[in-house]
């Protein structure tokens, strides 16, 4: 896979990426940081909800569901899963 950063909501289920940049500010950014979404953190897309949004992600040992509109603000670099 390429190294081009993509928004998190585009990460296919089962794939893994690393946080590259967060395009949100203030409270929302803070909240994401507190979940452990800091630079280079590994994120795995686990599963979509029945309607396809939100999606559950595996972040630092916890499963966190994010809505697409929020996930789209987080840029990640896809990682080849080994």
């Amino acid at each position, binding site marked *: 896979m390429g190294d081009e950063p993509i928004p998190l909501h585009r990460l296919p289920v089962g794939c893994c990426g690393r946080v590259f940049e967060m395009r949100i500010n203030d409270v929302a950014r803070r909240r994401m940081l507190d979940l*452990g979404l800091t630079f280079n953190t590994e994120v795995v897309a686990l599963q979509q*909800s029945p309607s396809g949004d939100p999606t559950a992600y595996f972040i630092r040992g916890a499963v966190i*569901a994010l*809505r697409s509109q929020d996930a789209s603000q987080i840029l990640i670099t896809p990682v080849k899963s080994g």
Partner: protein
Amino acid sequence: MSSIDSREGALPGGPVMVALAGNPNTGKSTLFNGLTGMKQHTGNWAGKTVAYARGRYRYRGKDYILVDLPGSYSLLASSAEEEVARDFICFGQPHVTVVVTDATCLERNLNLVLQILEITARVVLCVNLIDEAERKGIGLDLPELSRTLGVPVVGTDARKGRGLGQLQEAVRRVAGGELVLKPPILTYSQLVEKAVAMIEPAVQELAPDYLSSRWVSLRMLDGGEKFNRSISKFLNAAPAQSEALAGKVAAASGFLEEKSGKSASDLIVSAIFARAESIAGEVITISPGRADGWDRRLDRIFTSRRLGIPVMLALLGLIFWITITGANYPSELLATALFWVEGHLQALFKAVGAPAWLEGLFVNGVYRTLAWVVSVMLPPMAIFFPLFTFLEDLGYLPRVAFNLDSFFRRAGAHGKQALTMCMGFGCNAAGVIACRIIDSPRERLIAMLTNNFVPCNGRFPLLIVLASIFLGYRGGIFRSLSAAAVILLVVVLGVMITLLVSKILSRTLLKGLPSTFALELPPYRRPQLGRILVRSFIDRTLFVLGRAVIVAAPAGLVIWLMANVKIGAFSALEGSARFLEPFGALLGMDGYIIISFLLGLPANEIVIPLMIMSYLASGSLLDLGSLGQLQALLLDNGWTWLTAICVILFSLNHFPCGTTLLTIYRETRNFGWTAAAFLIPTLTGVLICFIVATTARLLGLP
């Protein structure tokens, strides 16, 4: 400056103040209950502890006051819960802070631990759910963790009471200053350290002794506006001094951003997480094979694209069906027993020569109402609540929120509203309080105003009883199945109305866009059947029944009096019922039913008993007993299936009970919103019942 230890050995004879902090879902409340013997309701989802609870315990001759802080991921952010937790740890100066962490998710939890260790060294780390971790093949080197962090670490399984003794011992030793605590100072990148150095001297002059000036400086750089407001109350600064300090902070943040291109908070949080990651790397070993395989497998069913929602409906329907089928027989048994007692009571009153009115008041008024409440409501509750608690304990409810979130998003509401809605199934007042987990005021109000559209514990017995009497189709298993389906439909209708009203509100009175949110899906936990039975019986069944009995006894008295005091040609009861009859008829019901709903304002539990009482009191005195006889009583009073449907619909959509209204007022401090909470569901109910009744009549159905 080692200001943290300034109170070393300064423990007076008074109780030891212990704060209980931790991420949501770490079993904090269970631990709190285990230590204090209190029964705070716990549930496997974020945000159960919305304000803090206090409890006491005694250990080796000393009293400890335990303060259960709201679960939070961090002390740095801005939600109301995090603020409560942070202010208590910073400024409440507890003697010891116990940080509860989830052994299965230690890395993320360490973020909060490290943040707290920056404020105070008097910390005991409690690694809870250690059994779950073992089961998942997660190995934890607790002695190493303790060495790394410089504070005592105790592994516990709060649900089974494992490790609580060791935890109390560690707390005692920290409180008494027996342990020398030396948590290493968390160091940041050179740039951050430089920025801290730019402001720390100024902070040190102003900060009270008990606050670490390093920590205060870091937080000021971090720039939480709310924090700066909190802290200014505690700094002994003249306005000019604060302004000078603010200038320094701005200069230091500017320096950081210019040099690194990143904000101070990004740099600080990243450093804390990097440290957490490296500690986790040292102390956690995960045995090969997916540790969370079971969770993922269950999630693939419960939140699956195709099956998620059908499975959810099937589970709920199954619960209703089991309740309806199972409640019938014990209901009859109870009724027989209680009315056997009634016969003897009457005989007793006669034997001692009590006047007829006294017998009427106490036996026909108070006792009979109570007997009805118990025999009609106890069996369904004793079956329904344990089943629901089972799902709650398993960790299923956050999955419901996950499945339903897209509907809430489209309604302009917050995703956590699905969780507060689930709380409403238990009790709407609790559901309204739970709305505090929603940060945005707009979305919180929407959630509070619509919480009443899910039927609470107090209303389920009415739904179950009426559905099983009137809406069963044919006999045998079809009867209970169709009754269960009706209740399921009612709940689904409630959710749809919730969404519709939320949407209307977010387009009109409470305009705005949904705010950012993250929903944690905690690991499934193996439900403990014994505990579920005990807890759901004591905390819920007996609680609801107790409330019903307490309110129903005087209400039975009032109804009996109303039925026996003549005003003109009619009794007071008959008079009011006749007055309300046209309105009731318009809605497919009758005057007595409307009176029962009105008098049922203190508690929804008593609506059914009040109906029964008013029918019984107004003449057709009938031998009492089981559901079959209840059916006969209602049929005698002109009920049809349409009446039952309208009563069910009105029960779902009418004013919240008194407690819920009071809670809404306390939460909003606003009469207008409280009135809205009263009017919105009532008007909805009037409208729906009117439409249903009119349509049925036009079609000539009943």
